[in-house]
């Protein structure tokens, strides 16, 4: 019988190789059809109108003038007079028409009036938010080495005593750090193309949740989920924001029903940014104390931020990030702002927590004049995930690739070339990444063709390629012999792509399904070869007696023994239920940045970035490296470029177009070095998700590098030229 477990490291035929993604050429030549590209005959276009004010009550809304515009087919208000709107850009009406021009003209004709209400959008000003009554959900959590101290006032005294002790012998830093709200900025906006056949709906939805969105259409439409097919072959970015049908998805389906024609409703760029996904901000005041070796003894912080109208801050549990010193107090407060609710953004909470806390660890290094590397190293015994040894090994690799020891200089003490100084910084991260539940159907046809079906999706990870590799490895076939079918809710259920769960999940189900299918085939082949099924193996396109190339059949001959009926097997993995050796949970990761900062212009330039990452067993080394390159570049964006800018008076999102919302371009990212860390101990853990972890540490690592270059902390990210110059001026 074929063994379910992964082959030993170094013995796999396909796993760990670098085949090109199997849908690569379709995507690179425009043949791949995304939701936005689905254009059924007679399709109508729909666009939405966003509320122009951040907080108001609607006093008039009339879409009938839009219907007078030639080419407009339908229009509807999405809110009633008297309704309160809580953020600018919230959808208030929608127009359907034959062309973009007609729809745009129709939107302008809509009569909309409102009474403005008080607006609050400032998430960095805690005192102001408190005064405006916009804070909520305050909480705190305290841990003291001396567990006998329980009364709050005694705890206050103990924190003071501990900090005084550090002051005497080591260092205490009082820091303020922050990172602003950013958006998901999926290049394909949220939306769908909906078409009906009688009472059955097909929703072509841009989603990272193919198997989980049919019901989200069905319930509000008052039809059965069985009458909905969600289809998505390709999704143009999700990053945690595309799990839902969304209200405008349901509206699109309703308008298709109403007009009797297929309707496409995709959000415009500005409405996309205003409605369809942001990451909460994080601001913090910290007192951190360390001994003279730089080992942190005490952490006392208060942090706040906004997740929009929901009002939550970065979760407390990840403050300080990865490290957990013996004495630690963390308070948190949420700020309720007039902005759409945040959505899960790649590694929820972690990038912000890393960016506002590991900078304080670096400031300890600065205060003590110690190499930052040594401060991170000496604090590894306090990491929360039992991965001190992995971090240590990864730090050594990263330092070599960066040439850290040779390049290092104490903060602000490096040589200057004119007004330009350079610096090094590092940060570490962690993530879970256990696989999601996944079911697939694997079929082996009598002609030897193999196919697998599952309601998964490709966020850009290379889901199809990973599945093909796992099935190919299991059946001893080449990757291109496997036909992979994903992207329909009518296929077996597979989890949503969130939290670095997909590669693990689809590998679990397909390894299981393909192994079971192969065992059925081996049972058919065994008598023909005068062997027992457990003596057979599938390698290099053959079914043969183990190790005996002379005694076997070609794959095609073997499948021919099936007669007329294909083998069909379900592979099933249920998270938390199925016992497994195929996957695991929990990774580390070390990143280092080298930057050049111009003290006269405030411009920060990326020189080099090193990312060392473990992820258990690696299915495809090329795709894995791509994930990390991309994550680092997203991290550079948050460190140096992107932020949401709000007008405090009207609550308008001022830079909600790509021309104003700054992102790095190809020339802005410097040299990026990626190292996949996969010793046998990691390989043997099986697959662990990779999508989130490498996006976490870049902002902190880059902030620390800027501080090392300047000798001055730029406390708030992104580190725009103005913030850099302000920090330099303040330090003088």
């Amino acid at each position, binding site marked *: 019988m074929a063994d379910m477990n992964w082959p030993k490291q170094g013995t796999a035929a396909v796993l760990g190789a670098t085949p090109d993604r199997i849908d690569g050429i379709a995507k690179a*030549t425009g043949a791949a059809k995304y939701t936005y590209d689905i254009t059924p005959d007679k399709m109508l276009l729909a666009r939405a109108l966003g509320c122009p004010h951040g907080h108001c009550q609607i006093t008039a809304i009339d879409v009938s003038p839009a219907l007078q515009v030639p080419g407009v087919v339908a229009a509807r208000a999405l809110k009633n007079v008297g309704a309160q709107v809580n953020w600018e850009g919230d959808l208030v009406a929608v127009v359907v028409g034959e062309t973009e021009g007609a729809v745009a003209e129709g939107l302008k004709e809509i009569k909309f009036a409102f009474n403005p209400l008080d607006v609050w959008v400032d998430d960095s000003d805690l005192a102001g938010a408190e005064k405006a009554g916009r804070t909520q959900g305050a909480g705190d959590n305290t841990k003291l080495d001396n567990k006998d101290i329980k009364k709050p006032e005694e705890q206050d005294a103990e924190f003071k005593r501990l900090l005084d002790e550090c002051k005497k012998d080591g260092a205490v830093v009082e820091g303020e750090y922050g990172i602003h709200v950013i958006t998901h900025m999926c290049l394909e906006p949220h939306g769908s193309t909906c078409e009906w056949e009688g009472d059955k709906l097909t929703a072509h939805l841009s989603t990272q949740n193919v198997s989980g969105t049919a019901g989200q259409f069905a319930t509000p439409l008052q039809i059965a989920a069985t009458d909905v097919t969600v289809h998505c072959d390709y999704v143009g970015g999700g990053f945690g924001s595309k799990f839902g049908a969304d209200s405008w998805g349901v509206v699109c389906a309703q308008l298709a029903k109403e007009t009797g024609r297929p309707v496409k409703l995709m959000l415009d760029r500005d409405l996309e940014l205003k409605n369809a996904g942001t990451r909460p901000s994080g601001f913090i005041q910290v007192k951190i104390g360390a001994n003279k070796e730089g080992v942190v003894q005490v952490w006392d912080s208060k942090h706040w931020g906004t997740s929009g109208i929901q009002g939550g801050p970065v979760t407390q549990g990840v403050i300080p990030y990865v490290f957990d010193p013996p004495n630690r107090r963390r308070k948190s407060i949420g700020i309720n702002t007039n902005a759409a609710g945040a959505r899960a953004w790649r590694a929820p909470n972690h990038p912000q927590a890393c960016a506002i806390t590991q900078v304080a660890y670096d400031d300890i290094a600065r205060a003590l004049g110690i190499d930052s590397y040594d401060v991170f190293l000496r604090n590894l015994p306090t990491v929360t995930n039992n991965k001190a040894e992995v971090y240590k090994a990864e730090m050594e690799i990263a330092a070599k690739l960066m040439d850290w020891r040779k390049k290092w200089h104490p903060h602000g003490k490096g040589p200057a070339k004119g007004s330009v100084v350079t610096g090094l910084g590092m940060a570490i991260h962690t993530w879970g990444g256990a696989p999601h539940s996944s079911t697939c159907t694997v079929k082996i046809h009598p002609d030897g063709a193999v196919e697998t079906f599952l309601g998964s999706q490709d966020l850009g990870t290379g889901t199809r390629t990973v599945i093909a590799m796992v099935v190919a490895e299991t059946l001893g076939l080449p990757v291109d012999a496997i036909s992979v079918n994903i992207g329909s809710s009518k296929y077996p259920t597979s989890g949503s792509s969130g939290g670095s769960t997909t590669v693990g999940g689809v590998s679990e189900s397909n390894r299981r399904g393909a192994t079971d299918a192969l065992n059925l085939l081996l049972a058919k082949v065994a008598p023909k070869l005068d062997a027992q099924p457990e003596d057979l193996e599938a390698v290099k396109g053959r079914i043969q007696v183990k190790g005996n190339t002379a005694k076997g059949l070609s794959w095609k001959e073997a499948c021919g023994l099936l007669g007329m009926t294909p083998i069909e097997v379900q592979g099933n993995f249920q998270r938390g239920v199925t016992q497994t050796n195929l996957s695991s949970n929990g990774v580390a990761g070390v990143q280092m940045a080298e930057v050049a900062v111009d003290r006269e212009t405030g411009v920060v330039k990326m020189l080099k970035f090193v990312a060392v990452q473990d992820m258990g067993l690696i299915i495809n080394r090329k795709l894995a490296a791509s994930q990390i390159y991309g994550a680092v570049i997203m991290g550079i964006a948050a460190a140096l470029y992107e932020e949401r800018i709000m007008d405090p008076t009207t609550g308008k999102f001022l830079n909600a177009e790509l021309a104003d919302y700054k992102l790095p371009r190809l020339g802005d990212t410097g040299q990026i070095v990626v190292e996949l860390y996969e010793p046998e101990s990691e390989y043997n853990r099986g697959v662990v998700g990779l999508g989130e972890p490498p996006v976490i540490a870049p902002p902190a690592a880059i902030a620390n590098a800027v501080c090392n270059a300047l000798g001055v902390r730029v406390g708030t990210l992104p580190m725009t030229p103005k913030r850099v110059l302000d920090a330099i001026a303040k330090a003088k």
Partner: protein
Amino acid sequence: MKDQEHQNGKSGFNRRDFLRGSGAAAAATALATAPQLAFAQAADDKKVVRDQTTITLNVNGGDHKVIVEPRTTLLEAIRYQLKLTGAKPVSPDGVAGAATVLVDGKAMNADTLLALECAGKKVRTVESLGGEKPDAVPAAFVHNDAQQCGFCTPGFVVAVRAFLNAHPQATEAEIRHGLNGNICRCGTYANVIQAAMEVVKGGSK
């Protein structure tokens, strides 16, 4: 509080209504924002011309009849009428480069071109680089995995093709300098640089 009107005039975008509709405070913001004001002024009293006309667009070597209005962009015409959906609508101002096509050999944004102005010109879309034997640029994108979600990729492929047509011996520094018109949110720039370098060096064979 007095109602705030937000209706635009019949003749399209009206500056007076624009200021009034945004509320007094927003008007102050708008006044402080020169481009918005300029836009409001420029749009004042402009009329929408809706009349449709049939023109011939030469796309990927073939002539195609399309029905357009003066305001129809090249992107709308090729996506919705010719069903060539490789060029993507990412931002209406073209700054993402996702709708990059070749017009008479030059890389241009199909979302900021009017279909009418492309009549009589030779338009090539990313689809012309595909087919049985794909062009070296998309092949190198695949080989170097210069795509993740892939939504920006067709525009990037065309931009790289145009850049390398003009600079077949480009150095890495020139590639880093010359390909900044396209945005990738997944962060594939490092791979795009590798792909472009591979094409310069003779492809992935």
